[in-house]
């Protein structure tokens, strides 16, 4: 049975030509000269007023990068990127770095307002709902008053909300540039300790040219009092966005962090090569959620963001836990594998993903669970939906090291195809070197079973509704992992795309 009409229509609703965030804003920008060289890196470092060690770290990465070749193993195809044809630094002239809200260019505030991300704390707290141009984007998690936002606009963070309140709890939440200046000892200790500068082609490039990103530090025993979030916006033409996020949860700390991203509609492809590093010490827990909605290109596959991201969490401490949840609908090409290194004994890694691809989008995404400590466990739940001419690949690795006694993994990945011009692929790598391990993997590509449907329908529920019910059950695994406020927004996105589809 092919996908039902309702599903097809609903996936169509989030098809590439329905992209809602494609507007462009004209803001005067301060840019580095085009191209990549040691000069560019010195320019970025000087702009940010960085200490020498940071510049050296960047230059080291750059020299390493020059010796590397672009990887080709992923199931994605694109013309070669001209790294000399990109601006590596673009900051709004009026707001060249993080500042207080009053100093932020009203034009930029307008952009965020249009996206539904209010940055004015008083208004958020007062629950003021300003009418926006796009009514649909207005009631989302960011207006709930329980989320602190770091707004990154092209290469710089323009403002971080609720800092004072977070500081009371001892939580450090600021842009990476500020952290390098204000807390160099912490940054130096952890930066590159999870994703080293030598890690891979794009991570090495990012190490050399990263311009901003978010820094989160939760001290020992603190439960972060609110959701933290970074909203990434690419606005300027021909720029690449290279952000670096570092989240550290000390012993017993807890944080839930959300990431959102959008970009204007353009014919050119833009590169986004981020690195995210998470460190969880003993008993700490980090929950990292992403709603990735970069511009996916038009219906003919023209334009769109290349999303080449390295995300990795290190469960460094015993009993620590890192959980990745991602809802992927955007980007022309996605190439990312949020991973967990389960180093501490009894540590746990989780990965929940829904990836919907439309148009000519190409998704090659998944995770890596590297079991090193004893009694470590991991769970992978991935749901992929391909439509149009897109290709959607799950690629994941579960590796149980010789010393990882009693490691446990459960992996489940399901895919659905809508139409006959797309592809769904599953490429799991399972490597077990310890006999006490329990590793289970299952993957399916199929339709809702007639039995399930019959069961619901014979209770008087019409077919389409029955399918919707079953599908809601199908995605529940992933949705329930999202922070509550965020889930509402994501559910809308997913509700649209999954209803009427399959398991």
């Amino acid at each position, binding site marked *: *049975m*092919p*996908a039902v009409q309702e599903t097809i229509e609903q996936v169509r609703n989030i098809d590439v030509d329905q992209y809602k965030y494609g507007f462009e804003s004209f803001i005067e920008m301060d840019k580095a000269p085009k191209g990549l060289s040691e000069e560019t890196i010195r320019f970025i470092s000087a702009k940010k007023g960085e200490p020498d060690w940071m510049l050296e770290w960047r230059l080291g990465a750059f020299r390493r990068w020059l*010796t*590397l*070749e*672009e*990887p080709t*193993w992923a199931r994605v195809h694109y013309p070669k990127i001209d790294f000399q044809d990109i601006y590596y630094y673009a900051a709004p002239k009026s707001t060249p770095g993080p500042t207080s809200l009053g100093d932020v260019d009203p034009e930029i505030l307008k952009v965020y307002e249009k996206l539904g991300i209010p940055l004015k704390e008083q208004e958020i707290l007062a629950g003021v709902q300003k009418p926006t141009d796009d009514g649909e984007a207005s009631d989302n998690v960011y207006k709930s008053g329980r989320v602190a936002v770091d707004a990154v606009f092209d290469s710089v963070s323009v403002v971080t909300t609720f800092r004072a309140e977070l500081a009371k709890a001892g939580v450090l939440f600021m842009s990476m540039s500020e952290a390098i200046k204000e807390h160099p000892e912490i940054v130096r200790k952890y930066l590159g300790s999870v994703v080293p500068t030598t890690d*891979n*082609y794009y991570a090495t490039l990012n190490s050399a040219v990263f311009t901003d990103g978010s820094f989160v530090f939760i001290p020992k025993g603190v439960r972060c009092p609110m959701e933290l979030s970074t909203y990434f916006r690419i606005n300027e033409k021909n720029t690449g966005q290279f952000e670096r996020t570092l989240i550290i949860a000390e012993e017993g700390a807890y944080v839930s962090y959300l990431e959102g991203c959008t970009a204007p509609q353009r014919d050119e492809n833009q590169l986004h090569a981020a690195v995210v590093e998470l460190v969880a010490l003993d008993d700490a827990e980090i929950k990292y959620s992403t709603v990735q909605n970069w511009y996916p290109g038009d219906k003919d596959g023209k334009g769109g963001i290349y999303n080449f991201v390295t995300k990795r969490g290190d469960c460094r401490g015993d009993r620590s836990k890192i959980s990745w949840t991602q809802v992927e609908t955007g980007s022309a090409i996605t190439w990312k594998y949020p991973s967990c290194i389960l180093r501490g004994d009894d540590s746990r890694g989780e990965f929940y993903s829904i990836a919907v691809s439309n148009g000519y989008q190409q998704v090659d995404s998944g995770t890596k669970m590297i079991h090193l400590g004893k009694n470590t466990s991991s769970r992978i739940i991935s749901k992929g939906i391909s439509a149009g001419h897109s290709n959607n690949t799950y690629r994941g690795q579960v590796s*149980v090291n*010789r010393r990882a006694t009693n490691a446990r993994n459960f992996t489940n990945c399901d*895919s659905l*195809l*809508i*139409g*006959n*011009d*797309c*592809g*769904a*692929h*599953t*490429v*799991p*790598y*399972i*490597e*077990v*070197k*310890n*006999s*006490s*391990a*329990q*590793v*289970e*993997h*299952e*993957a*399916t*590509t*199929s*339709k809702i079973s007639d039995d399930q449907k019959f069961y619901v329908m014979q209770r008087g529920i019409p077919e389409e509704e029955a399918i919707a019910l079953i599908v809601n059950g199908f995605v529940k695994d992933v949705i329930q992992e999202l922070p509550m406020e965020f889930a509402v927004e994501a559910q809308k996105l997913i509700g649209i795309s999954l209803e009427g589809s399959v398991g």
Partner: protein
Amino acid sequence: MNIHSTPKLTAAETALIDAFGERFSELPGDATVAVKRDDAVEALKAGLPTRRVEAWHYTDLRRLLTNVPGYDSTLAARAKPALLAGSTVLPVLNGVSGAGASIDGATVTRLVDKLLDGSFAPALGPREPADTVGALNTAFVADGYFIDIAAGAEIAAPIEIQNVQAGGQTHSRFPVRVGQGAKATIVERQTGAGNALTSSISHLTLGEDAELLWIIVQDQPDGATCLSQFNAELAKGSRLTLFFMNAGSKLVRQEIRVRMPGEGADFKLRGINLLSGDTHCDVTMMLDHLAENTTSTEIVRNVANGAAKGVFQGQIKVAKDAQKTDAKMACNTLLLSDEAEFSTKPELEIFADDVACGHGATVTEIDRNHLFYLMARGIDEKTARGLLVKAFVAEIIEELEDEATVEVLEGILDDWFAEHV
């Protein structure tokens, strides 16, 4: 990563290329075959595949292939009694085929004759750059059998291809054509004494509505290297059951490449890998569902003991036109020792939107509850473990139905357990 340099040839690579230089004048074939051989050796000169080549991700042949003995025509290999009683045995002894046999409903030709007259040349050559087994075999292939089963023939007695090594190196091919509606059983044995380097390739073309059971048993000595390939093409409505059992050799690469261009074709794969010592055994399956209503199920069970390393890569592709495909693959592994390893990559690549495909993979130790159940009934732990491990693999054999066949295969299983567990 990704720093490329032209590789310096390893000792094994050099030995292979040198062996070709020495053997070339004696290898059978007309000019068309010679050209294929030359091209294949050129491919080998680029170096054996490493982990970077995706199809060889878990078997770094460049590092693992160290045993390259020369061809030795003086070695004597003896034919063995047939595995299944009443079989017609077609022996290849130390790389040389016998006179052949006459089988009602089938024609058997020595492959050396088809190399000499060049009629086999079109089938030679690697299928793609990563087809190292194909390249190696093309360069050196000297003999084998061509079995042609007539349309409508129902051959009751199994036909046993017996590839017996005596040491040195041998390279053989076994093309098999099964006519429309024919039925037969073929047993392929890779066996012998001495630590030989073997490459062996079979090609099966299954006609419309034909039905075939193919059983591969590999039990070469502990130091042997066995590189083999099973190719099959399934026409409309045909049914193939492939059963394999690996219970020997130090280095095994077994490729199973099946294409299903015929509507309604069915493929069943049942495999057992018994791994011990420092064996490295890689079974790689590439299956293409190319037509509507094709079905397949694949079950591979592995038991790894000692410091053995096992690999199963199973790739199922479903083409755009292969609607209503039903494909299910499972790979289950029991690790019996702390040094044993198993890696698996079950891959699905799907371009049709109305299919049911699934794969499952597990790697575990023996279930404690099962063990407890048996021990609570007064069975000592060692015996209980033995029972459970055997049951885990024997399940696959029992599916074969024919009692005599099941008994023989379980016998091999018992022998292996007695010796290695």
